[in-house]
């Protein structure tokens, strides 16, 4: 995959990743809410910096 994504800015980067990353559906089968996606992305950032 050669597609690139602009993650240079915080606010737009979160929104872009929330749209592109493959999040699993919730227990009710519905798409994951945006707030939960954002939390997972922030977890990803902290995990990246601590690993």
């Amino acid at each position, binding site marked *: *995959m*050669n*597609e*690139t*994504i*602009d*993650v*240079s*800015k*915080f606010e737009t*980067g*979160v929104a872009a*990743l929330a749209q*592109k*990353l*493959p999040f699993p559906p919730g227990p009710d089968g519905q798409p994951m809410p945006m707030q939960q996606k954002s939390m997972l992305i*922030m*977890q*990803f*950032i*902290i*995990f*990246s*910096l*601590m*690993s």
Partner: protein
Amino acid sequence: MTTEELLHYRLSLIRDAANMRKPERAPVVSFFVTWKILDAGYKLSEALSDYAVMEKVVRHHQEEYNFDMLNDLGIRNPYRFARAMGSPTYMVDDEAESLAVHDIHIAEPEQCREIAANYMKFLWEHGMPAKYPWWGPEASLGKIMGAFGEMAGFMGFSGKINQIMTKEYGLPPRVAPNPMPQISLENILGFIFGIKGTSVLMRRDKAALHELIAAMDAMFYTPAIMGLKNMPAGQNPGFCYDSLLAMLAHNFLSPKQWEEFYVPALKPYLDAVAEKKMNILIFTEGNILRFKDFFRDYDKGVITLLPENDDIFEMRRELPNVALMGGMPNDLLGHGTKEECLDRAREVLEVVGRDGGLLFSQNKMGSYRNDAKSENLKAVNDFVREYRG
């Protein structure tokens, strides 16, 4: 004993020791990390990059040495994730059988106030590119998706290996999933400024450092403390401990800095644990005895310390209210004779464990092949399991 009975037996041994009651025998605890990979006959890179191999390693470790609790289930180093991100943190050398973990800091002291003003924005826009030069306007989506998948894979393995060890081996999980306050200074030193940058701030701009601690506390520490305080009192009987803390930053603090920067976070945390009658396990890297007075006021049965370089006999004398995990030097396990190891084990059981409050373990994270000889470890574990003092 059935696996279920073994699980409950081990939990009772560990909780008795943590509560400073004299258990039927001292529980035997593993503090081995990468040593167990080499001991199982694998290369470090093989196990770190393949969860199926790491599962075999953890199973082998338990089947060979029959511990009552494992401090590491093969999940200390998220190597696959780091590799997917192109992180320079881990350097594996299979020939030398070593895993080097590089300290990387992402900011300079003069950026402290900028971080405090918007922590997550700073991590995103400055921290990430400082560590990962590819993070920016044209980042590879495939790379991010791969790493994101690795994060999920790491968490999946973590859950799976916990289940396996509990259900198949009767090994109790280490810590209950309670709100766990993070000491902000540990993260500031651990990955933001590093040792040098944090020390510079403490000397030259304490106000900025306090600002950053306050900002981080508001996001992470305070909600967790509130969560802890809102929990019902009592210990979770399905886990060895109710809370867990790793301390490193204290090694770089003067007594005055300890009082100013560490105690204001640590004390409310431990007070909350004590108030809830819970057990906390604290891994004190380096030396902790110079701050022993801080721990003296807590009731028996609250705190278990896992010391690294401190003498465990001195710790027992100085802190009779604290349970201790440790006692067996890796140097001796790796270089001593079986008789020397058993003599040491007996002395630890007789002196440190005389009135309870001992979880028998090693004094360091077992990392290198010379951190233990297999035959010494087997003999010591057998001896401790059979000892009734």
